[in-house]
């Protein structure tokens, strides 16, 4: 990833309407944003549209980017917010059975004690992603994906999402517990 100081000239040019400068920014960040959106939405086609929308929003709002954080952090914020909106729209349409209340999630204290076996490991990762994400509230998805896909530190996640590091830690723990428990349920339902 290019250091922020290398991107500022491109951002300045793009602000003045230089399409080529903005296209360079898109090329630098498109895989990251598409990966994040795919993780969030578990639907490659929808994620593609979402990622496009993220870049369009970023372009329109370039003047609001003040440069106090990395451009990538700003894009992550737009992506998380946009994907959250899409998930809420899905929920309103009843498109996806959703369990978004944190109280509803009761992780098994032993759920992290046993690693999934080889059969589960061999499951298709894309299908698995959909199954895992289906049971995760959007706040949990955000911390889990920013950590596992982007490798962000707790501090960086906290800044991106505007929450405390303690909240990041708590949500990450619960997200992993829930996801691993879902994996175990999946394995059990497959009769493995």
């Amino acid at each position: 990833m290019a250091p922020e100081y290398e991107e500022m000239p491109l951002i300045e040019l793009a602000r003045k309407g230089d399409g080529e400068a903005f296209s360079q920014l898109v090329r630098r960040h498109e895989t990251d944003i598409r990966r994040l959106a795919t993780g969030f939405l578990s639907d490659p086609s929808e994620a593609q549209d979402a990622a496009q929308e993220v870049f369009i929003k970023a372009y329109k709002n370039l003047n609001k980017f003040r440069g106090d954080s990395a451009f990538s952090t700003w894009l992550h914020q737009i992506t998380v917010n946009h994907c959250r909106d899409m998930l809420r729209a899905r929920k309103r349409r009843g498109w996806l059975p959703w369990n978004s209340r944190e109280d509803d999630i009761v992780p098994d204290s032993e759920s992290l004690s046993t690693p999934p076996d080889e059969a589960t490991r061999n499951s298709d990762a894309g299908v698995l992603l959909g199954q895992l994400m289906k049971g995760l509230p959007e706040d949990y998805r955000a911390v889990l994906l920013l950590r596992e896909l982007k490798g962000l530190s707790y501090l960086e996640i906290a800044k991106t999402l505007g929450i405390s590091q303690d909240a990041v830690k708590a949500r990450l723990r619960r997200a992993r517990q829930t996801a691993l428990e879902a994996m175990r349920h999946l394995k059990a339902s497959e009769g493995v």
Partner: protein
Amino acid sequence: MEHKEVRLLLDEYHDGELSPATSSGVRDHLKACPECGAAIAGREYLAQVLSDAVNIPPSEEFVRGVLGRLTKSRVEPASLRWPLPAMAVALAASVFIVVGLFSHTPPENNGRGLISAKFEYEQGGPMPVMEQEMEISSHDQVLGSLLEES
């Protein structure tokens, strides 16, 4: 380190958020504790699944798609953060001046507003009297009387 203590630190250990000393303590515990070792393996597996599921190559087609949509968009102007209060102050000042002009009609204009008096003067009527002039002259009078007293 105690098992209970390590259980609470597993996520931070997995994420590389612990100090080197604490991390080393957890690592030592993991060598001797299959339960905690399995919990770490579960976290590593989850990370792998997520990473595999979104293993997306760069796409020039995607970039072209974004750029194609840009032709219909433009960068919006910067936020009007300071001009708005400035405009509000200017508006308030204008209102204050207009109200001041019409509400303080000096008796010398016989109840007519300054503007209408000015209009009448231009049409050959009596000269309008401005309040400030009256105030200045009264100040001069007070000053003069003070000088006389001293």
